[in-house]
């Protein structure tokens, strides 16, 4: 069994950012394990721009953003295993890896989970109807077009207004497909406002809010879908059905953090984020196992993924130096109007970054962190939407209770 100080599972933006940060802070015994042949994760297929706006003040493409970190990893000589899939992580931080050269076993002093997320599928939504070819998640269609040079679509309906779906509406249009419309079950878009403008409005692609696909037709290739309006309980309204002929249905209906390895390591998951339950250091319920990026909670932009991974890197360095991190005895709960919060546990001693998403769109709202009767922090927002993650620093003061709550008014 080989030993390593920090084993990073995943060579996407979170894993690479953490690797560089750890190395620069003096933690040099690192191994990045990437299952694909190339580093960069999902950014490889994101050839549109808009990456790095906050971090580098320029609009980079996904591959360009990734390359900055890949170059730095190479420059520093950080060991990366590619074509290497982690099969298992145990609670005592033993990691089994499979590569074309054979099986490898490592014992790590600390592990960073940076596996990213996967797309919710048609099956997970249980959309009724037949199962023809031509139903793709947005990321799969993106991969086929941008990485595999395969055209999967001509006449397209898109279900869900997640960012990848919006990006694909534009991409498909640019490649000659006809995008008939984007249908979103919620009364508001799931993607960022800038993507609604740049990917739909600029190309005259209609967005139908409060609609969903209720039937899928075709026994070989897709021949059409039936869409319908939904009521405020998201149930289809009888009489509003419309049949739309198309050969392709693109799904952009949510991302799920990829935590199968985490479960095996005994890491507790949060049902709302579907990522690990973590403290302000990004440490999971398994001591020495940390999580960063979309495996922890799905972010809006990659710049924030990098920033989170770098914060976790600093915490990992501290963990290695001290053998343990201070106990996070205070629980942070998502209260009224808040979909989820990260972290879910804090020490109550140090300033920490609070991330959250609101449950519904709000205007002129106050977000409050409460420790019993004591208001720990309060922020006012003119506009808060579920599509845009909110974060701010919180100074804890002196804790009165062990159960804090974050709520909106």
């Amino acid at each position: 069994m080989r030993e390593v100080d920090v084993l990073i599972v995943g060579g996407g933006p979170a894993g690479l950012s953490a690797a560089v940060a750890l190395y620069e802070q003096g933690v040099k015994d690192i191994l990045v394990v990437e299952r694909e042949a190339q580093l960069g994760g999902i950014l490889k297929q994101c050839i549109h721009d808009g990456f790095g706006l906050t971090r580098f003040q320029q609009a980079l493409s996904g591959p360009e953003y990734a390359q900055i970190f890949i170059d730095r990893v190479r420059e520093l000589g950080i060991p990366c295993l590619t074509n290497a899939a982690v099969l298992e992580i145990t609670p005592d931080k033993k990691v089994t890896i499979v590569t074309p050269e054979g099986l490898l076993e490592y014992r790590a002093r600390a592990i960073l989970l940076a596996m990213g997320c996967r797309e919710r599928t048609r099956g997970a939504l249980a959309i009724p109807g037949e199962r023809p070819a031509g139903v793709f998640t947005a990321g799969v269609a993106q991969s086929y077009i941008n990485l595999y040079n395969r055209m999967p679509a001509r006449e397209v309906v898109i279900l869900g207004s997640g960012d990848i779906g919006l990006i694909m509406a534009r991409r498909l249009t640019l490649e000659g497909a006809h995008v008939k419309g984007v249908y979103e079950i919620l009364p508001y878009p799931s993607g960022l406002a800038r993507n609604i403008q740049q990917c739909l409005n600029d190309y005259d692609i209609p967005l139908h809010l409060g609609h969903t696909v209720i039937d899928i037709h075709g026994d070989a290739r897709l021949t059409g879908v039936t869409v319908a309006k939904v009521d405020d309980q998201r149930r289809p309204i009888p009489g509003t059905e419309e049949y739309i002929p198309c050969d392709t249905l693109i799904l952009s209906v949510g991302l799920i953090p990829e935590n199968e390895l985490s479960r095996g390591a005994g890491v507790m998951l949060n049902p709302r984020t579907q990522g690990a339950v973590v403290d302000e250091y990004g440490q999971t319920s398994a001591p020495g196992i940390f999580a960063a990026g979309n495996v922890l909670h799905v972010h809006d932009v990659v710049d924030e993924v990098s920033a989170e991974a770098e914060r976790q890197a600093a915490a990992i360095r501290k963990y290695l130096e001290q053998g343990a991190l201070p106990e996070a005895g205070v629980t942070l709960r998502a209260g009224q109007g808040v979909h989820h919060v990260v972290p879910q546990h804090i020490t109550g001693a140090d300033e920490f970054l609070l991330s959250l998403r609101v449950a519904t769109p709000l205007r002129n709202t106050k977000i409050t962190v409460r420790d019993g009767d004591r208001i720990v922090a309060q922020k006012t927002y003119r506009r808060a939407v579920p599509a845009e993650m909110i974060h701010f620093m919180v100074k804890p003061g002196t804790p009165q209770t062990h159960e804090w709550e974050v709520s909106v008014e």
Partner: protein
Amino acid sequence: MDSLYDVLIIGGGVIGCALARELARYDLQIVVLEKNPDVCYETSGRNTGVCHGGFAYDTGSLKARFCVEGNRMMGDLAEELDFPFKRCGKVLVGNSRADYEQLLRTMAQGERNGATGLRMIDGEELHRLIPSVVGEFALLSENSGILDPFMMTIALAENACENGVRFDFNRKVTGITRDADGIWTVETPAAYYRTRWIINSAGLGCGAISEMLGIHGYHTIGSKGDYIILDKRLGPMVPMPIYTVPSNTYMGIHVTVTTEGNLLLGPTAEVTQNYSYYGVEQKNLDGLYQEAMAIWPHFTRADYIRTYSGILSKWVNEEGVIQDYRIEIRDDLAPHAVNLVGIESPGLTSAVPIARYVIGMMQEREAFAPNPEFNPERRGIRRFADMTAEERSAAIAEDPAYGELICRCQQVSKAEIRQAIHNPLGVHTMVGLKYRTRAMMGRCQGGYCQMRISRMIQEELGLSPEQIEYNRQGSNLFYGKVREEAAR
């Protein structure tokens, strides 16, 4: 058109494939015609995958007889042909006095049928077996089990193929004639076939083929069942299938574990005459949720990974009552033609006994010489996911492609995909590879691996993007390249 076959089998479901494999024991020229691009495309692959015990059928029926016989031999068959089968047992749970009495009747019927390993268990024992189940008591059938219906059918077909049977896909039979010499001519849009014997194992098409053979009057109905597949994370909580109290015509909604460890909820049961519609309806999804919750309330909608449906072909009499299997050679109407009507559940369990019974009927009319080269053994693709650490190391040392995982959810390596692409039957649809390797069957449903797999098919077989099909003819995945690649 030139060659004359000894036996032509219509239908590449589990019955047709079992017939092909059992007939391959004899010195015969055999061809199987299947209208889909692969075996196991209809009823045989679209079911619960349970090896039944034989207690749920009328005593004296062919269903009871073949099921009991098939159950007994399934372990040996699975070993010989290398397909997943587990004799894990099964429970039928009940709560009321009426349930108890019905289960006692079911048990008595099973015993009359020759089924063994049946006993009533109390709540305590039931919950020791399956702690999470809702129920006061149960009938335990120790010899029931689960099998992989795709791999069972594929294994039968591959073994037949390796023993010389020809499989022609995308051959929908459109007409059958018999000439003065007693030779049958079978017409498909692509080719004509001449044969001395013909077997109708067309499943959902059995009524239509029966008519073509000149045997009229069979009324069949389709019974369509919808299912939901759940994430295999839940599998360990259901060590054996959980059924409710059955009637002799409907087994009820059940919660079943697959050989892969996924859970299945279903099936619903609706009469249909549309044998090509496999859509799943919202009301059925809602109903399955409710009914499955009543016996096993430990899942949420977030555990769904896929839905599917299947159709059983049932032979009914004039009153609409479901009949037993009908297996006949009508020397008066269609000599040298075996007609199988209403082969439905328990068809997987019964497949090989049915095949042997059919061959017995044929041999009463013609003695077949044995095939001295017949090899009953078939080895499947060695699976990385099923190997121990030592086996994995050895496999990778031998073929590094075993160390490259293509499908992460099911841990399927590149070596397995490659072997599957070059399968003996020559099937290269995406779904065909899915059934053979389990790649794309997991929770991400091919989100990670389908690009790699479709590229491998193109590279390994030299196909163009337009030739890659998902399942049926016309189910193309691509409309070509995005743009022509620049010369390198």
